[in-house]
């Protein structure tokens, strides 16, 4: 009788031994990101002290070269040339405005310039200067200013 008890004990132990190697990586976080509104997802996933992704880092280099003269290093629309412009360049740290703006609108503005979205023609078009993926990098980086990087 004692032997059967031993077996009864052994079986779950063996099973436990097999399962212990599993890595308890949480899948719940990944599950929560489904849904269509990408801006909302980015806001959710990236708290203050946001670490730049690869695309955003690529964008930051291009932004510093092409955009910062007017839009400012911090994206506040206060580059050294901003004060010669009327209307003033867009402030990218304005989170209320940026959340309402879709990725497509940002990419269109960079590609076709202000005139292509019925805004000021003072914003030039870069669609023939940098390639499409570079424009997407810049668009991704422009979104990071709302975190106050």
């Amino acid at each position, binding site marked *: 009788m004692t*032997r*059967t008890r031993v*077996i009864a004990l*052994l*079986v779950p132990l*063996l*099973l436990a031994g*097999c*399962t212990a*190697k*599993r*890595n308890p*990586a949480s*899948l719940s*976080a*990944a*599950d929560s*990101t*489904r*849904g*269509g509104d*990408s801006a909302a*997802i*980015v806001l959710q*996933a990236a708290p203050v002290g946001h670490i730049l*992704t*690869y*695309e955003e*880092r*690529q964008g930051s*280099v291009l932004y510093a*070269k*092409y955009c910062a*003269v*007017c839009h400012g290093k911090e994206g506040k629309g206060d580059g*050294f*040339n901003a004060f*010669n*412009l009327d209307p003033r360049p867009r402030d990218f740290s304005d989170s209320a405005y940026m959340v309402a703006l879709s990725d497509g609108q940002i990419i269109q503005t960079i590609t076709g*310039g*202000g*005139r292509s979205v019925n805004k*000021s*023609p*003072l*914003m*030039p*078009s*870069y*669609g*023939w*200067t940098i390639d499409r*993926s570079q424009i*997407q*990098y810049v668009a991704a980086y422009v979104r990071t200013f709302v975190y106050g990087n």
Partner: protein
Amino acid sequence: MKPLRATFAIVAVLFLVVLAVSPLKDYLREWKKYQTGYNSLVAGLPQRVKPVDIGIRQVWVQKLDRVDRCVTCHLGVKEPALHAALEPYRTHPRIYHDVDDLGCTFCHEGQGAATEYRESVGNVKYWDRPILPRAYLEASCAKCHRENDVPGAPVLNLGRKLIRESNCAGCHRLEAYQKQWIPALDGIGEKVNRTWLVAWLKHPKAYAPSTKMPDFLLSDEEAGTLADFLLSFRTFPREAVLDPLPAALTSPGDAQKAKLVELGATKFREARCISCHPINGKGGYVAPELGKIASKVGEQWLYNYVKQPKRLQPGVLMPRYRFSPEELAGVVAYMESEFVDYDMEKPAPHTPDPGFYEKGRALFKKYSCGGCHGLPGMARAEETGPDLSAIGAKKLYEIDFGRSGIEQTLPSYLKTKLLTPHVFGESMKMPQFGFREDEAEAIAVALLGNTGDRIPPDLIVPATPQSAFAPQGEFGKLVDDLACLGCHVMNGRGRLVATDLSLEAGQARRTWIEGYFKIPYSLRPVLTERMPNLFLSDGEIKTLVDYMETSFIADTLEHAVPSDPTAAAIGRGLYYERYGCQSCHQIGAKGGYVGPPLDKLAVRLTPGWIFHWLKNPQGLKPGTIEPNNNLSDAEADALAAFLLSLK
């Protein structure tokens, strides 16, 4: 009977259990959980994303001999709909390479064949190339992009620039990096005084924060002996002898001296010395600090050097200014009176210890000074430091972490070694360069790319061949004497601090270039570097411009721009209303100041250049931030006509 049956029963049950273990183990594999997680994730997406069949997935890259099973869990790598998902399902960022083409571990490192998280990351025994941390990832670009800058890899590019500037190749074997030109020490005994030299050797950055000379952490005794040794070298290259100081500098009256200093101050300003030289940290960055120069070098040396820089230091990129004898004396008198270090103790007479020469020579060898500086009678030291041509594949057990207490990985070792070499042991000969943390990281990135791996030749990006352009004749002599290639590029030769001159005569009008040599001005108000006034004679200017007019041109730039007022009126509309050019350019003091002002443009530029520039700015100056507006020929003509009509 009974015990036998019981034993049989136990063995049978045990047998069953053992049989069950294997399928159970397989059922509970780590990656299966990720795959089912992926399927439930994509099922909930509004977009249609195909779920995956459960099973090991892999990328086989035959040419690199790699099998990477990373895609077993990283299932969304090629699925754009998952760009906002969390890892391991997120889309791979858009890069210029394809995962089917290069696989994963070729860039990321790690153990590609592993199917468990811990093993694939590679921080396990018997796997020497663990996954590269994010900050060091650009290292892998260097495997194929061996020499040229990589667009999109700013950290790697910075690291390479720092390796070149710091002349790491002076002591280490580093393929693809050439030794830099650094002044030889011939005649140093006639140049500097001992008090300054001892202080400099002990702590170079105290005198000139911008210097590239590292700190060898010498003791007082070592610095003194090395200084005595160096000061015994008193002959200049090619047997040059210092000219005596003119009478105006040796015995001036008080009134005469004040006048001389005043003239010198004016000329020092007009020559724009601070375009290249910093003064107490402010000014240019391509030449040495001048803030305390009078306490460093002797007056006679300074006079001779400003007079003919290349005579004392062949190869230096300092132009020979065309000062008159009086102006030259004035500039020297001004520098002697202005740039003095009042805190430095007065140079006192000093008798070196006996045997200083041998001891100093040993120190010169020990610290491998000859890796950078030439010295007569001493062979230039070759690679006295460790070979770094395969440092990226160094195995962890080969590294002595000493008592540094840092994280035991190769990237952290390299970074710490660059920041504070001496934490790995007192006897380390590597000097302290005073890098910032991000600079040390960038250099580590560039070094980690030297893996010594065998790369298929078709993947290696060939380096741009070095231009063999060497101007000859009178023009060539002037280019050498004025060190034009120190700042300008001509047909691929030179350093791009200022503009590329390869098409200068096709771009600018002759009269404008001539006037610019007389009074150089900055086209853009926000630029820091400025063209120096070299005080050239009319004959020299003619030689320079004549050469440009025959060589720095291109037939393709010729174009006739219509001159009728209707075209100009259309151009005005395009300028202000459609393309908003005024956001960067000024006309009549109205507009932005990113680009140059456009008033009187017809005086400066040729019509053909304006037209072709408007059509494709990057075609003429790669990397310019002027956007290409994709203008039609008619639009470019109209805009050019408007710009040429500006008075």
